[in-house]
């Protein structure tokens, strides 16, 4: 069997066509670590993806490189989507990348979103469950690392606001394996032994992975179950962890958490003084008002000349008395006058009066005779005179 030689170009072209015809190689999704990363001035990215045993060259052209959500660098674990193709000139095959993301981050985001939605549905973020932050907590419990800027910032801000502040630090790891469990335990210990009046749960800034313990369900549930109010201050102002949503109050930074937890002593003293003064002024006003009323009252005549009123009453009684007397007298006089008149009238009409003038009354039996025709011969009649009477016989 005779074999005809072919050129290198022909071989590489053949390989290229073979690879291009393979559907699987047209859409690969590869996990690996970046090395030899070069961000070329043309905008294309050149690098190598490797794992423990193997490596492959990769290129991302400018049009795709522009769409990446992060800047790749050596050592970064990534997931690369692209096409495997042969570069004829060098006789190498490589991945032509179209999209790339950081490995692990995607699943963390999904887990974060899922847990957030779940706890929100359960009501763990509900404002009705938020405990009020005490105005004057005596002891501030701080859960954070005992090294680094966070605890220092908290102590500095707290001491500035209240020189006599009492802080109890219960150190906890704030990242890595087992951190969440230790944070949970610390929250429980502070609660069980009532070691503080309020808790600050704090951590400095970091990557999503660094902050991860504060996105774990057990931490969220421990915060929710805490009887002590919890202020969370995890990461930078722009980082929102699940712990922040469950906490009774979220502070953008550890320093801000200290400001929220520690009352400004001077402010409180001033407030107390102000309330005292307000009360004093109000009472003084009230007393003055009452005194004025009293004084005004005492200037009244009844208090100044109490006898005058009695004298006035006497006068009044006297006047009434006189009026009654007058009324009675007048009535009597009037009646007396009318009686006299009637007596005079009666007197004038009295038969006795007539008799004094020489007239007499003629009676037959008991009947007074006023007409001569009422009498007949031999009637025995009685004649009454002013003084005495006599019998007579009609002739």
């Amino acid at each position, binding site marked *: 069997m005779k074999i005809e030689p072919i050129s290198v170009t022909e071989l590489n072209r053949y390989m290229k066509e073979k690879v291009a015809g393979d559907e699987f190689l047209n859409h690969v999704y590869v996990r690996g670590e970046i090395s030899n990363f070069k961000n070329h001035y043309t905008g294309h990215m050149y690098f190598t993806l490797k794992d423990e045993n193997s490596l492959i060259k990769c290129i991302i052209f400018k049009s795709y490189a522009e769409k990446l959500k992060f800047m790749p660098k050596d050592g970064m674990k990534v997931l690369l989507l692209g096409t495997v193709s042969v570069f004829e000139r060098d006789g190498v095959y490589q991945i032509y990348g179209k999209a790339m993301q950081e490995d692990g981050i995607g699943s963390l985001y999904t887990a974060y979103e899922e847990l957030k939605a779940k706890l929100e549905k359960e009501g763990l973020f509900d404002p009705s469950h938020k405990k009020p932050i005490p105005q004057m907590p005596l002891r501030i419990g701080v859960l954070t690392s005992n090294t680094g800027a966070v605890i220092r910032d908290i102590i500095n801000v707290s*001491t500035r606001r209240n020189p006599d502040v009492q802080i109890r630090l*219960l150190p906890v790891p704030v990242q890595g394996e087992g951190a969440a469990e230790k944070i949970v335990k610390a929250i429980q210990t502070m609660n069980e032994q009532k070691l503080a009046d309020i808790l600050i749960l704090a951590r400095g800034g970091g990557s999503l992975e660094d902050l991860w313990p504060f996105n774990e369900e057990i931490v969220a549930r421990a915060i929710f179950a805490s009887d002590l109010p919890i202020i969370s201050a995890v990461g930078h102002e722009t980082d929102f962890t699940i712990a922040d949503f469950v906490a009774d109050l979220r502070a953008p930074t550890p320093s801000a958490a200290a400001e929220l937890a520690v009352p400004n002593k001077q402010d409180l003293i001033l407030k*107390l003084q102000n309330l005292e003064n307000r009360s004093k002024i109000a009472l003084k006003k009230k007393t003055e008002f009452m005194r004025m009323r009293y004084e005004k009252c005492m200037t009244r005549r009844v208090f100044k000349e109490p006898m005058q009123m009695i004298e006035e009453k006497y006068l009044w009684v006297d006047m009434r008395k006189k009026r009654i007397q007058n009324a009675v007298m007048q009535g009597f006089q009037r009646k007396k006058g009318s009686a006299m008149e009637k007596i005079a009238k009666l007197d004038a009409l009295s038969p006795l009066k007539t008799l004094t003038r020489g007239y007499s009354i003629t009676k037959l039996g008991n009947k007074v005779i006023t007409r001569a025709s009422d009498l007949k011969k031999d009637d025995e009649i009685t004649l009454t005179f002013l003084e005495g009477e006599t019998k007579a016989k009609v002739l």
Partner: protein
Amino acid sequence: MEEKEMKQELNFEEAMKRLEEIAQELEKGDLDLDQSVKKFEEGMALSKKCNEILQEAEKRITILIQEDGEIKEENFVPTED
């Protein structure tokens, strides 16, 4: 000890709130003089109590160290790093 301090802490807020109410009531001037004096005395007592609570505390920054389930408290000075 723990219980008592918790109570005092609560009292500070309650006392402050009550003191505010009293100041407002007095300022309104609706109360008669007897009531005003009583409220005023109550207010002054509350203010005194709040001041005592404020002055009572002494600076104490400690670290809690857990050893065999026991908690030890030691003074804490943050390290420079």
